[in-house]
């Protein structure tokens, strides 16, 4: 996809503009800038014309839109959540062992007679990319299976993913999942 921009600059800005064209070229991959000197018009105001053409990367891709879901859950719930998500058709996820704290701010333990604060509690982070229309179902499934009703069940965050690409084939978005 090519977009072009045209601007007319006064001639005395010409040098400055040539610098500008370089900057634009650097910023904008595969761009080409052309400076055209316009004929002096009747009002005796010489000027130049800058025409820049940039190739903009297509950030959208083809196929259905996808959502990026980040969920933190209690580690012992991982297997149950994975099973439930597989059952509803989720075909992939990324899992990380993490530590963190939420509103409860950790808890205390005793080691060799000394009480100490466990500020960061171990959790599992799931990162799941699904077709946008499936997101609600995924969220509901995670909420239902990861819930114990006690403090520290975790949180879910949902983002719009700009694009998903399968490395092997180059397929995008819904097709890449």
């Amino acid at each position, binding site marked *: 996809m090519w977009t072009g921009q045209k601007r007319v600059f006064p001639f005395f800005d010409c040098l400055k503009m040539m610098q500008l064209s370089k900057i634009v070229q650097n910023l904008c991959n595969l761009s080409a800038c052309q400076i055209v000197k316009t004929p002096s018009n009747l009002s005796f105001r010489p000027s130049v014309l800058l025409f820049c053409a940039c190739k903009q990367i297509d950030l959208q891709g083809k196929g259905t839109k996808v959502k990026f879901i980040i969920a933190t859950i209690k580690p012992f719930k991982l297997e149950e959540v994975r099973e439930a998500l597989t059952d509803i058709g989720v075909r992939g996820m990324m899992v990380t062992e993490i530590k963190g704290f939420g509103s409860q701010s950790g808890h205390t333990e005793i*080691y*060799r*007679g000394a009480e100490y604060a466990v500020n960061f509690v171990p959790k599992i982070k799931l990162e799941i990319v699904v077709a946008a229309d499936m997101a609600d179902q995924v969220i509901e499934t995670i909420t239902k299976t990861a819930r114990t009703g006690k403090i520290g069940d975790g949180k879910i965050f949902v983002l719009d993913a700009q694009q998903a690409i399968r490395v092997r084939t180059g397929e995008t978005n819904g097709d890449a999942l």
Partner: protein
Amino acid sequence: MKLLKTLLPAAALAALPVMGMAQEAAAPTMDEVGPYIFTTLLFLMAGFLVFFMAAGFAMLEAGLVRSKNVAMQLTKNIALFSIAAIMYWLVGFNTMYPGDFNGWFAIGGPTVLDPVGVAAADAALDYASVGSDFFFQLVFVAATASIVSGAVAERIKLWPFLIFVIVLTGIMYPISGSWQWGGGWLSEMGFSDFAGSTVVHSVGGWAALAGVIVLGPRIGKYKDGRVNPFPGSNLALATLGTFILWLGWFGFNGGSQLAMGTVGDVSDVSRIFANTNMAAAAGAVAALILTQVLYKKVDLTMVLNGALAGLVSITAEPLAPTLFGSLWIGAIGGVIVVFAIPFLDKLKIDDVVGAIPVHLFAGIWGTIAVIFYGEANLMTQLTGIVAYGVFTFVASLILWFILKATVGIRVSEEEEINGLDMAELGMEAYPEFSKG
């Protein structure tokens, strides 16, 4: 140790002419050489059991330090054992068992073994071979040095620590040991310490206490009036180490009977095994119950320390008590540890593995406990405890201060935070954790 080595050379000399004549007439009978053979065998077996305690200490300490200091802790353990072995040959053994001496102090020379294929007539038939005796005593001194390494872990420089070990194993321990086991003034007085609650364990504990005080606590251990625990890297290793020490203790106490040539002796060794085991079990159970009650959760590291404290408690008199006696003596050892560990933390004495509660406090308790079943009186026992305490603590304190003033004993703050493994060794015990 009930037999005094000082008396033995004299007895052997007296026996020599008789033996010589017997040998000309006929080969020595089993009655004549049996006790020598069996006692030597006892020393050898007990010796390698106690030797293995070096592995126990190494594993216990490796498990209770953080992973960034594990390789260094292991290095210190093998180095200190090896140095102890050399120093004990060079001066230690003959300083500790000088024969006739003034009862306080006599520096001895290197140890000389029996000649190869020694004839019965030339052997100390009423005791054991020099090699077995030397080896058995050597592994005890190594145990003393191991006690120190655990307490000062995670912040002490390698070489100053090893210099301390040289002096401890070559001079300090043998001198104080000679007071009791070498036939010195404390044994004359009637002080009773069968296998070394005081002579070995308290001595290690006092040296460790002095070291910890001079060194100061690890960075971040005591901050804003709070105690910040540094959980150990591997409790499986710590547990294995405790079981190895427990096993080794059968040699430690059993071998200290110093004789296995008669029905009475071999039965006594068996009695010691059973009592030693009972005290360890009672110490562990006491710590198990007490930590559950006090903290609502059992603390494995305290249970491990409890078992060891039970063992140290029974070491001063593992023969005389009944099994029930061993049970309660060991249990009190376990209780002492559970209270002593937080107590030391209150005083900001940072003992990484609990060596001071286990070896010093339980050692003192065990030495006092002799009065309940053994032949000892309280005042004599206290005299011995104080004598060993003053000598070892003061000598250690002086030595630590000299080392601190000259070469320095503590690594830099940055090195301590990065871990001694990388700072002093340039290698890690678990490199896979940090590299792909």
